[in-house]
């Protein structure tokens, strides 16, 4: 019992939460802008992991292993996730923009399956999982009663930098202002001269690139990647976004860290409970506070 809430478990939970947070941000941003629950988002995460994997073996030939290399891989993972998000929006969601909302939702499930099966059918990717390389040497630190590796710090650092960057982007830039405007009222924003489609594409790009970054971090932390690796983390990040209040950016981050720690502690209490705790949280949130912790009141949701 003693070790359920130990400092080590909190560190484990934070690390998991950081990865969930980066995925949850994309869910919540896309929902905020187009009111679409993009079930393919978990697969953008998977694409990011594969992009990072490919980038590593590409640059391995002419870049020394270390920080610089890791940075290049991170950028390419984000580009990979962002590009596939942009393409999904362009070819799958945009044509259905003013159709009933259920059509886009079902299409999102279609895009998700398309990506999964496309990746497992591609000969040089294939359905079997593969190991993820170590981008840099692992160092261990002892902080209090916990063993903390530099990977944990990298996970938290990358997540923090990206989240601060996103906050600045949304609050301080014209594009951020346009995003906020579109999320409040698409038609009014259009009348004010905002190119709504451009804003939506940008949102997908940012959301996808965050998922891509999460893919790299997940690959580093839990070094096994496969075409179906995005399903469960995607689902859990979605629940984190609902917990925080879907459409709310700080809410997604808060929800993700709560989820990460709850899952770790529940697993430590009973390993079977851990897998299910996310769904228990979802049911409880929907029953007691359907708008989430920080969510604003809205009239209708899917």
């Amino acid at each position: 019992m003693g070790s359920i809430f130990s400092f080590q478990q909190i560190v484990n939970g934070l690390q998991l939460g950081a990865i969930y947070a980066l995925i949850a941000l994309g869910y919540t941003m896309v929902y905020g802008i187009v009111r679409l629950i993009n079930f393919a988002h978990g697969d953008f995460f998977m694409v990011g992991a594969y992009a990072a994997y490919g980038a590593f073996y590409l640059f391995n030939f002419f870049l020394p292993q270390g920080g610089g290399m890791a940075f290049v891989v991170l950028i390419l993972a984000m580009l990979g996730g962002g590009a596939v998000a942009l393409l999904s929006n362009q070819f799958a969601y945009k044509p259905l923009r003013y159709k009933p909302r259920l059509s886009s939702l079902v299409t999102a499930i279609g895009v998700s399956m398309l990506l999964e099966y496309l990746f497992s059918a591609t000969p040089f990717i294939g359905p079997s999982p593969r190991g993820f390389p170590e981008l840099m040497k692992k160092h261990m630190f002892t902080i209090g009663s916990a063993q903390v590796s530099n990977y944990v710090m990298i996970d938290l650092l990358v997540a923090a930098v990206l989240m601060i960057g996103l906050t600045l982007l949304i609050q301080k830039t014209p594009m951020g202002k346009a995003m906020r405007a579109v999320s409040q009222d698409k038609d009014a924003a259009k009348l004010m001269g905002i190119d709504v489609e451009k804003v939506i594409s940008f949102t997908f790009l940012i959301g996808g690139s965050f998922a891509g970054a999460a893919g790299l971090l997940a690959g580093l932390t839990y070094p096994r990647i496969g075409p179906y690796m995005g399903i469960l983390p995607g689902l859990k990040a979605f629940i984190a976004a609902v917990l925080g209040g879907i459409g709310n950016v700080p809410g997604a981050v808060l929800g993700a860290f709560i989820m990460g720690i709850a899952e770790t502690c529940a697993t430590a209490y009973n390993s079977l409970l851990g897998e299910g705790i996310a769904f228990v949280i979802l049911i409880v949130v929907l029953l007691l506070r359907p708008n989430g912790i920080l969510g604003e009141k809205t009239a209708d949701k899917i």
Partner: protein
Amino acid sequence: MKSSLVSAFVAVALAGSFLACDKGAKEIKIGGVGPLTGEAATFGASTKNGYDMAVAEWNAKGGVLGKQVKMTFADDKGDPAEGATVFTKLIEQDKSIAVVGTVMSKVSLAGAPICQNAKIPMIATSSTNPKVTLVGDYIFRACFIDPFQGTVGAKFAFDDLKAKKAACLFDVGNDYTKGLSEFFKAKFTALGGQVVGYEGHATGTTDFKAQLTKVLAAGPDILYVSDYYNDVALIAKQARELGFKGPLVGGDGWDSPKLMEVGGSAVEGCFFTNHYSQDDTAPMVQAFVKSYKTKYGADPDALAALGYDATNIMLDAIQRAGDTDGAKIKDALQKTDLKTVTGQVKFDGDRNPVKSAVIIEIKGGKLVFKTTVNP
């Protein structure tokens, strides 16, 4: 016209069967089954090589009961329906007095009732599912069953690694890994050790840190991880990250180059139980490896060794039975006490072999034979 044609056929068929009977008196006919095509094709090819080698060796020494052995091989395609057909064919049409095979448990489970009903002794090669031999008293196997590995692993951890405290990790959705851990726990406790952690994980998960943190807090000397190689590599890496320095021990699910590819330095100095190792220094193993390499130009894997052993066990039993009668061969099989490539074989009450397992160590990124452990 038509009826005369039919009777001509009948006459030919009858003549054929008389001829077959007549020929049967001069040689010992046994059946061999394996998947030469389908999902387990490489398993079948190795197994068949093992059969052929054993038969050739017996024949070179003068055969069984003074007669040459003739094995009819049939491809079960790794499919239970096909398996049922070929087992029937080997018994009804080819008049085999015993059947060696097959590889996959699900196919052996289809073939076993056919052999049992026909009172034809059968010995499965590498079907590890405990249910196979429970079909009836004519059904034996050459490999050890899953739970046995847990017992051997515990013995190795306690006796050789001098571990006093152990923790187990397994996949809750997989009977194989659950079984191994259960038997490890039972044996390790019986030996006087202490199992300080016993945690399952969900199938397909990649984050084992919560379970590991919990079990490592109790300070185990070793971790018993009965998972397959994919999960083992991740568990090993995360255990090292959490500061665990001791060895991990597991079962034959580790046997893949992928383990070292993903696990890297984290699996270095870890151990697992397996059926056989071609690096085993025992003279019989070395003789087998040498003649297999000469004959087939490849390294014999565990399947080849089990195919070879199964054939030897069956032919040895026929020799000792002194007769081709199924019931007598079955009784002789039960009394087997034979030295084989995969260990000294005796059968228990459920017709599973009681034999040694080998321990493989991961050393310098390679699988190295460590020792043999007797049950």
